[in-house]
């Protein structure tokens, strides 16, 4: 930004200048309505004159209709913004509130505190630099106090204010206050907080919150708002190592190439050496391109456009870092993962991992355990449901630049996105790199696929037949094998039913097991392809994500997906194995087409209509397309 444009000696100007020089603190308030959270936020807004008269009038009106405070104004109604929330008297979603004092501007994340809203608290805490943990003085440290503290600790918040509220209802008792403080300190020993302040407050009257109290002569500490005004804002640590994720490359003309991004940490000057991750190439900062004129340095939090000395390959998502203290590069990390979606996490499914501006395909290859957020205990688990937190190992398809989250909240944080629905389903914090690329070296084989294919005089690839049970996949697979065999092409058929009797005998039909079933089969198919065989896979494979995973494992250029399309009414009527009848009778749970979905392939290599075409016609279509695409 530019420096101010104001005439200097006018009192309004001086006031405005003071306003503009304030810094910003983002914090989260943890607690439930019962603890007085809304009263507290309402009070902060009201006392800093952020509630206007018309809003107050509308609030008074709403308080009579929906409020829980009788004639008095119910501040909760101010923060519950959505119609459904106001009607049901509950807070569903995280909201952000804004206020300022003479010293600082504040953004408050107001997130509901119940266990089923962990997702929202994590969201609110992700951008916060301080947390206020509310405790009802009559109740002391509760399970939910522990849960809230654990979550803000997990999200890396170091500054905590424990606000012991409703102090008036325990007669402003110092004994109770001291006992609760002691109890909290004992519990917090296992956490990683750096500063913990205890304040006895009354949110309704504002005592020790915004106003001094004459009722607590034994408390000599600052009011809550004074602590918030002075707590150190973490992003300003300029001694931290320089990091910037490249958002995009600016090339308005052939003479200019700039790299845009927001500095995640540290500072950068013209002439500084930087390293590009993951490529590892190094160069120097030549200049900044800035709307406001020439500059020679920039610091954490600023959005900049860097011009570099050398023309090296840098693209969106690459991480620029200091060469003295460079970022890690890894394709295998251990993380804390918070699950945010209704649909459970599926290990081995391919998700999109977004870190900084980088998007990369990734999968969870091991869920070590789940953390019980009420007790902080480790619980063994095979999946994570909505609001669950787990420790996982995640593999990315290509290496990425990163830092552990406890060293850098910006370059150590990521989200997982479902590749089919595009929804954000997980939030992760990197604990450390497992550096798989260094730990596991692939055995260098002297006879490779190429040599085998030469000897076999054929190319290995996978024909993946997907479709409902009874659509004719196995019939087509067998007929295709016979036809290829007659042409002296070496083949192998992997059939769903047969594989489930042996290799995958331990797997059931839940979504997680189906994913693992497909993963194993895809890996086996890949081995056959490496052996130089034409591998025909006949599997219902009902989910788009699993088929995408199979394609990814096998490799796109070796994968030919055939959708054997037959309408549900036809296959159910046909019911050659009597399975639909059993499933309808409830004897086969999770049966595709009955009580488990079949996701129609959106982009198969070929679709054959087995209810309309004969087996021979289907074969002709498949072979013709295989020839056209140079598989055969």
């Amino acid at each position, binding site marked *: 930004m530019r420096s101010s444009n104001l005439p200097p000696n006018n009192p309004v100007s001086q006031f405005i200048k003071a306003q503009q020089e304030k810094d910003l603190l983002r914090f989260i308030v943890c607690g439930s309505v019962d603890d007085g959270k809304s009263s507290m936020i309402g009070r902060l807004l009201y006392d800093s004159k952020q509630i206007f008269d018309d809003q107050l009038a509308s609030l008074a009106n709403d308080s009579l209709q929906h409020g829980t405070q009788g004639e008095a104004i119910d501040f909760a109604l101010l923060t519950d913004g959505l119609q459904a929330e106001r009607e049901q008297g509950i807070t569903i979603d995280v*909201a952000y509130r804004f206020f300022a004092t003479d010293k600082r501007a504040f953004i408050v994340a107001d997130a509901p505190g119940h266990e089923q809203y962990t997702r929202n608290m994590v969201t609110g805490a992700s951008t916060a630099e301080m947390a206020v943990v509310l405790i009802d003085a009559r109740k002391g440290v509760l399970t939910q106090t522990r849960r809230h503290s654990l979550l803000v600790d997990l999200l890396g918040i170091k500054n905590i204010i424990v606000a012991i509220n409703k102090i008036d209802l325990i007669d402003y008792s110092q004994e109770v206050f001291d006992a609760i403080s002691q109890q909290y300190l004992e519990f917090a020993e296992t956490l990683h907080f750096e500063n913990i302040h205890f304040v006895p407050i009354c949110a309704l009257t504002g005592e020790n919150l915004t106003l001094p109290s004459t009722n607590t002569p034994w408390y000599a500490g600052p009011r809550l708002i004074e602590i918030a005004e002075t707590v150190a804002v973490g992003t300003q640590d300029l001694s931290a190592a320089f990091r910037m994720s490249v*958002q995009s490359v600016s090339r308005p003309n052939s003479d200019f190439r700039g790299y845009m991004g927001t500095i995640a940490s540290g500072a950068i000057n013209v002439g500084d050496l930087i390293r590009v991750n993951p490529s590892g190439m190094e160069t120097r900062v030549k200049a900044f391109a800035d709307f406001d004129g020439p500059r020679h340095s920039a610091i954490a939090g600023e959005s900049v456009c860097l011009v570099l000395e050398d023309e090296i390959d840098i693209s969106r998502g690459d991480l620029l870092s200091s060469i003295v203290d460079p970022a890690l590069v890894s394709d295998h990390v251990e993380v804390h993962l918070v699950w945010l979606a209704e649909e459970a996490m599926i290990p081995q499914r391919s998700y999109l991992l977004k870190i900084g501006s980088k998007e990369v395909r990734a999968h969870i290859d091991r869920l070590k355990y789940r953390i019980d957020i009420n007790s902080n205990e480790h619980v063994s688990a095979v999946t994570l449901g909505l609001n669950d937190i787990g420790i996982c190992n995640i593999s990315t398809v290509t290496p990425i630049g990163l830092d552990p989250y406890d060293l850098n909240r910006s370059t150590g944080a990521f989200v997982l996105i479902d590749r089919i629905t595009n929804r954000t389903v997980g939030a992760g914090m990197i604990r450390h790199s497992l550096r798989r690329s260094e730990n596991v070296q692939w055995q260098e084989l002297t006879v490779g696929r190429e040599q085998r294919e030469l000897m076999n005089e054929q190319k290995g690839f996978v024909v993946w037949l997907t479709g409902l049970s009874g659509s004719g996949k196995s019939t087509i697979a067998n007929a295709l094998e016979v036809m290829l065999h007659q042409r002296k092409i070496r083949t192998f058929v992997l059939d769903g039913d047969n594989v489930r009797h042996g290799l995958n005998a331990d797997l059931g039909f839940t979504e997680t097991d189906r994913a693992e079933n497909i993963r194993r089969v895809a890996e086996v198919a890949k081995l056959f392809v490496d052996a130089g065989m034409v591998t025909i896979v006949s599997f219902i494979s009902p989910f788009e994500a699993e088929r995408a995973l199979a394609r990814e494992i096998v490799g796109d250029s070796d994968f030919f997906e055939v959708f054997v399309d037959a309408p549900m009414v036809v296959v159910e009527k046909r019911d050659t194995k009597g399975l639909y009848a059993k499933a309808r009778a409830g004897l086969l749970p999770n049966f595709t087409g009955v009580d488990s979905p079949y996701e129609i392939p959106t982009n198969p290599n070929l679709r054959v209509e087995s209810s309309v075409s004969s087996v021979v016609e289907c074969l002709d279509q498949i072979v013709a397309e295989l020839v056209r695409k140079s598989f055969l």
Partner: protein
Amino acid sequence: MSYLARLEAESMHIIREAVAQAENPVMLYSVGKDSTVILHLARKAFFPAPLPFPLLHVDTTWKFKEMIKFRDVVATDPDLRLIVHINPECVRLNINPFDHGSSMHTDLWKTEGLKQALDEGAFDLAFGGARRDEEKSRAKERIFSFRTSKHVWDPKNQRPELWNIYNARHAAGESIRVFPLSNWTELDVWQYLLAEDIPVVPLYFAKPRPVVMRQGMQIMVDDDRMKLLPGEVVETKMVRFRTLGCYPLTGAVESEATDLSMILAEMFTSRSSERQGRMIDHDQAGSMEKKKVEGYF
């Protein structure tokens, strides 16, 4: 960094992140102060390159004359491309706030008009100037807000948004609305306009203007389409506008503030919120949320 500088940097980050993920972005330009700030931020974000998207003004034909004049001056910048959309159906039916009421007027001219323009341009991402401090339902909307192919917002089913990682992925036909000023307050906007010396529509500054008191609001008589009701008298008062929309639906406030620093001085002592002057926010309970669900910004 000062808090205004942090807000500026955050908005630039958001704008760049949105454009990098969009196929065909557009910026809603309503001529008001928030649009003016976003336009300025976008210029900064992409400097030295020109804006990588066009501006879209959904014109209702009921905007203040001075707004249109200001818009057309802004559009003379050779680096800008301005698209003006006027809902032809509303023209045909002569939809107006006097005969059809504020709710139908806004729905057909603005919400429907906006959807038409977004569909016609096949835009998959649109920037808007909404701020979370404006209204309660806006306080809960994401910065990157997903819309279905029918432009519908589902407040109960929003994507979680953590850190400064923004997910703008969507299928064909779906779209994302992006609000770079989400974390700004009205006061921040005015302070920024002052600090950055950015010109705004003169309607924001006090000046003697012809106004009529109607339904408790000072409505400016901007042209002869506004017919006086029995008992109404046009008075010339020193007024300004805190927010700008369709002139028959936008209330003026009496004020002596003729420049930005005087506006700020008034604001520090103000006791009413800016959207009080917007009739469309109050015409039914939870009305902004309802409008947003239907596709309004």
